[in-house]
C-alpha cells in the first residue's frame, strides 16, 4: 500500500502522465484545467522534459502531432472551447494514427459559455468533433483515484492502437481534491514505434507520417483498416461499471461526477425499498452497449442523467433498442442534476405497474 495523498484532479492528471512516462506537454491556458499546465511547467523543467505554452490550441495540438510523430508519449489538456480549436489536429492525428492523450475538462457551453462543470461535449468527443470517419478512445473517470489509473491506462492504450485517447472529465473532477494512491495498477508499457519519424540514420527507408491519401481506393483501404482497428478496440477495450443491476427496479445511467450523485440516490432509494442499478460507462467510446442489452428487460425503465441537454442518452436508447423505456434528466449551464430530483424520477419509474 502506498501513501494516500490529497490532490486536486487536475494535478493528478499531470502526475499520472509523468508516471506513465510522458515527458512532452503542449497546451494553452483555459479554465478549469489550468492546474495541469501549472504542474507540468514546474515538473518538466525539473525532469528535463518539454513544456511549451503554445500560442493557441491549434498550435498546441499540432505540437502534440509533431512529438507523437517522433514517437514520444505526449499530452495536451484543454477545456471545451479549446477542444473545439483542437478538432482539426485531432482528426489529422486519428487519420495519421498518432498516439496521444488529450484531456478535456469540460465546461458549460455552447459558445464561450461558462466555466462551471458540464457534460455537454459528449457528442463532440464521442461522435467525433472533427471531420471524417474516425473514433477516439474516450475514458470518463469519476473519481480522482480513477483519474490516475485511467490516465496511465490511456497512454498504454494509445500506444497499443496508435490512436488518440481522450480523458473526458467535468470541471468538478478537475477541481476537486480526493485521496489518491499512486499504486502500480498497470505497468507502464514500452511499445516499439518503428514507424516514428526520428531520422532514418541511413538504416531504413524513410518513414512518413501523413493523413492525406488523394486516391479514392487508397483512402478507402486506409479507412477500412482504421475501421478494423476500431472494431478490435470495441472488442477489447470497453470498460463499464455495472452496479446493483441484477433484479433492479430502475437502472440509471450516468458517467463521471454524475454517476456519484446517482450512487447517493441508490442508497436513498434502497431505504424506500426501491432497488436501483447503475450502469456507468467508463469508456464512452467504445460504448458499453452489451451491458444495456444484458439488462434491457430487467428494470421497469431506464433513466439517463447527464449534465447536458441529452447526449449520451442517444447511445443508451440505441443500445436498449426499444426493448424498454429510456428517460432522461439533465441540467445545463453549470448546474448539477439534483439528488432529490433523480430520486423522484426513480420513484416514478419504480411505481409503474
Amino acid at each position, binding site marked *: 500500500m502506498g501513501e494516500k495523498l490529497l490532490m486536486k484532479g487536475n494535478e493528478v492528471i499531470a502526475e499520472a502522465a509523468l508516471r506513465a512516462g510522458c515527458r*512532452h506537454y*503542449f497546451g494553452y491556458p483555459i479554465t478549469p484545467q489550468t492546474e495541469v499546465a501549472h504542474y507540468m511547467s514546474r515538473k518538466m523543467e525539473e525532469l528535463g522534459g*518539454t513544456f*511549451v505554452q*503554445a*500560442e*493557441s490550441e*491549434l*498550435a*498546441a495540438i*499540432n*505540437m*502534440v*502531432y*509533431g*512529438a*507523437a*510523430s*517522433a*514517437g*514520444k508519449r*505526449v499530452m495536451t489538456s484543454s477545456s471545451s472551447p479549446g477542444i473545439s480549436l483542437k478538432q*482539426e*489536429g485531432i482528426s*489529422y492525428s486519428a487519420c*495519421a494514427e498518432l498516439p496521444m492523450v488529450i484531456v478535456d475538462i469540460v465546461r458549460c457551453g455552447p459558445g464561450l459559455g461558462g466555466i462551471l462543470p458540464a457534460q455537454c461535449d459528449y457528442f463532440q468527443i464521442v461522435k467525433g468533433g472533427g471531420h471524417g470517419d474516425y473514433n477516439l478512445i474516450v475514458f470518463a473517470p469519476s473519481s480522482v483515484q480513477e483519474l490516475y489509473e485511467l490516465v496511465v491506462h490511456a497512454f498504454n492504450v494509445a500506444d497499443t492502437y496508435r490512436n488518440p485517447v481522450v480523458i473526458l472529465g467535468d470541471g468538478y473532477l478537475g477541481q476537486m481534491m480526493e485521496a489518491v494512491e499512486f499504486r502500480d495498477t498497470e505497468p507502464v508499457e514500452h511499445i516499439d514505434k518503428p514507424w516514428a*519519424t*526520428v*531520422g*532514418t*540514420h*541511413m*538504416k531504413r527507408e*524513410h*518513414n*512518413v*507520417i*501523413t*493523413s*492525406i491519401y*488523394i486516391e479514392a481506393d487508397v483512402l478507402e483501404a486506409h479507412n477500412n483498416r482504421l475501421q478494423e482497428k476500431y472494431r478490435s478496440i470495441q472488442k477489447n477495450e470497453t470498460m463499464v461499471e455495472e452496479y446493483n443491476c441484477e433484479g433492479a427496479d430502475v437502472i440509471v445511467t450516468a458517467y463521471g461526477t454524475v454517476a456519484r450523485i446517482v450512487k447517493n440516490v441508490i442508497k436513498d432509494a434502497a431505504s424506500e425499498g426501491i432497488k436501483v442499478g447503475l450502469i456507468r460507462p467508463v469508456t464512452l467510446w467504445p460504448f458499453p452497449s452489451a451491458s444495456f442489452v444484458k439488462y434491457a428487460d430487467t428494470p421497469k425503465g431506464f433513466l439517463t442523467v447527464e449534465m447536458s441537454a441529452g447526449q449520451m442518452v442517444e447511445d443508451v436508447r440505441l443500445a436498449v433498442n426499444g426493448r424498454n423505456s429510456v428517460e432522461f434528466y439533465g441540467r445545463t449551464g453549470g448546474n448539477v442534476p439534483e439528488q432529490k430530483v433523480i430520486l423522484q424520477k426513480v420513484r416514478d419509474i419504480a411505481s409503474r405497474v
Partner: protein
Amino acid sequence: MSIVFDRPHALADKPLHYCPGCTHGIIHRLIAEVIDELGIEGITVGVSPVGCTYNNYEYFNCDMVQAAHGRAPAVATGLRRSLPDNVVFTYQGDGDLAAIGTAEIVHAATRGERITTVFVNNAIYGMTSGQMAPTSLIGQVTTTTPFGRKPELHGYPVRVCELLSTLEGAAYIERTAVNNVKNIRKAKAAIKKAFELQMSGAGFTLVEVLSTCPTNWGMNPVRSLEWLEKNMMEHYPLGVYKDVTASAAAE
C-alpha cells in the same frame, strides 16, 4: 568517364508532379544537396505543408511528416523539442505560412525554435487554382481578384522576412530567388547556412525563396521568370534580413 551531375542522395528517384516551369523542383533539389553536403540525411525530419507541395514527403529520402495547413512550424516545434539531436525543416508556401499559418510561424520564430523554414513565395495559391495569396502584388490578377488586387479591398502584400526579422528569436532570415543561376546558387548557400545555424543551436532560421507559378500566373516559364524579376523583386528585395552571426562578428 566520370559523373559530373547526379541526383542528390536525399532526393528520391521519383518524377516530380509539378507543372512545367514550376520552380519547386529546383528548391527541392537545393534542400537535398544541402542535406547531402552536411551529411544529415539520417537525422533530418522534414515537414510538408498543405498546398502544391503537400506530398513532397515523397521526394525526400529523410523522414517526413505531413502537417495541416499552416501548422508546419507547430509540428516542427513538437518534433524538434522531442528530437534535440536531429535537424528539422519545414517547407511552406505563401498561403500556408503567411495566411492561415501566420500565428504559428511568428511564434515559432519568437520562441527561437531551432528549425529551418524554407518559405516559397510565388504570390499566388497554386493548388486551389490561382487565388489571391497574402503575398500577391498590388494590381495582380488572380481568380479571387479578377480586377487586380486593390489595397482598399484586399489589403497589402505581406513582407515575411521584414516582419520576422524584428523578432529576437530569429537567428537567420534571408530572401532569395530562383530566377537565374546566380540567384539559385545564393539560395542554396542561404539554405545551407540556415541548416548550419539550426544545428549550432542559434535559433529560428528562415529562407524565403521567390518562385514562379507559370500555370496560375498564365505565363510561359520564361515570361514568368521575367515577371518575378520585374515585379516581385521590387516589392520583395533580396538580401539578408537577420543574421545573428554577422551581428556577433560586428561586435
